[in-house]
């Protein structure tokens, strides 16, 4: 089954207004930039982007365009704002959050990771110690009077928070290598959220720097088995500044 499509446009052609899309990347590293750019070009609106650790800070130009185009309804992330408060005040994304134009919801990073992993693995909910004793015992988003408490449970004398699986409509992932059947291999720390998001989404679309024949990635070296990947597009290796602020 050859899953390679000739263009980014065709790979995202069925994405409709209101879609929920997982965006991997840890700041600048491992972000599916080409797919994000195609999404900007397509102009899809009312999007919810579910992240893990600041991929939109790492793809600042793309975030700016998505914001200014009014394409974003909601962003979920563990680290989505500029570290510097003064820089944040100048940022159109943060301004839109402050103005109530984009909803912004926050979870601890490990909880985000586990929500995707659970979503992919058929686990509807799990208990975690992370966030106990903090405001993360509530659903935290930038709407003043809406802070819904999460369910908790004491197990063996310790308190835990119940968190639910996250299953986005789509995941965009960035791989170093893909074979034509969708087996993926990432490079070093660019793996980060790519694998779990690929498992969690209903439809996973991979951009890959290299596309190879089946068998070229040894079976023991596959990071994401092809079963999780529906579509593949070849992209150029991106270049970007590594630091964020």
């Amino acid at each position, binding site marked *: 089954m050859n899953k390679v499509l000739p263009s980014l446009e065709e790979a995202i052609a069925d994405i409709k207004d209101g879609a929920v899309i997982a965006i991997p990347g840890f700041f600048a590293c491992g972000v599916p930039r080409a797919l994000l750019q195609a999404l900007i070009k397509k102009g899809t609106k009312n999007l919810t982007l579910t992240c893990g*650790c600041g991929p939109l800070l790492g793809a600042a130009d793309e975030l700016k365009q998505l914001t200014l185009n009014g394409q974003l309804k909601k962003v979920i992330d563990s680290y989505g704002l500029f570290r510097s408060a003064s820089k*944040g005040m100048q940022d159109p994304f943060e301004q839109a959050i402050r103005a109530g134009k984009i909803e912004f919801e926050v979870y601890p*990073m490990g909880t985000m990771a586990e929500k995707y992993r659970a979503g992919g693995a058929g686990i509807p909910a799990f208990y975690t110690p992370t966030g106990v004793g903090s405001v993360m015992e509530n659903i935290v988003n930038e709407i003043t009077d809406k802070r819904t408490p999460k369910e908790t449970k004491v197990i063996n004398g310790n308190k835990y928070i119940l968190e639910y699986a996250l299953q986005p409509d789509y995941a965009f992932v960035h791989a170093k290598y893909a074979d034509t059947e969708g087996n993926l291999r990432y490079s070093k720390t660019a793996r980060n959220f790519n694998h779990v998001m690929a498992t969690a989404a209903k439809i996973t679309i991979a951009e890959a720097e290299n596309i190879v024949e089946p068998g070229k990635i040894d079976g023991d070296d596959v990071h994401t088995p092809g079963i999780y990947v529906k579509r593949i597009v070849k992209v150029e290796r991106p270049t970007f500044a590594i630091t964020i602020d």
Partner: protein
Amino acid sequence: MSPTKIEGLPREMIALRVSREIQDGMYVNLGIGIPTLISNWIEGKDVYLQAEIGMLKTGALADGDDVDQDLINASCQAVTALPGSSYFDIAESFGMIRGGHIDIAVMGALQINVRGDYAGWSNPSRGLFVGNVGGSMDLCAGAKKLYIAMEHTTKDGEYKIVNELSYPSTAEGRVSMLFTDLAVIDITPKGMVLKEVMPGLTPEMVQSVTEPKLIIDPNCKEMEL
């Protein structure tokens, strides 16, 4: 009214002091800020640094031709690999963190109280309910030992070691040791125990810039640096 600020050790010296607690064979996660500086002091030790992004055994910062855009640490700095470095996905990385496999996590803080609660992820002055929580709460929940490395007071000399947190907490009751530019403090069920002071300071001087009442360890001594 703020207490009178005391000029303390430079940040690098706080990092040096923390590094003394890190033994050969340990797996350690260093947070952003002063904790990151600790890596300069453990070169040569047989210590494994974990980066939340999904790497064990991070090497020195990379520059020039060594920079690989696919190889960064959790502070988004280009780093190098070492023989024996490994990479893994984020669920494995946080499984490792939450699951109690990290011997020591060292974090920065905005405030800490006498019970070992600390606040580090969100400054309310920003005027937002949300903030950048990142992986800090997972590290607090899972590390075998949680240390805080920070300046003893704010730049304006206000208490950071307080009776009650006024900033949103990162975790409750998880911190076991506190390292500042003025002191080393053990956090025990009985309270904060002053173990070491900056050379030249008295325990009373440290107390003057610390809101909760300190228990002075009978063996309280000057830090060796």
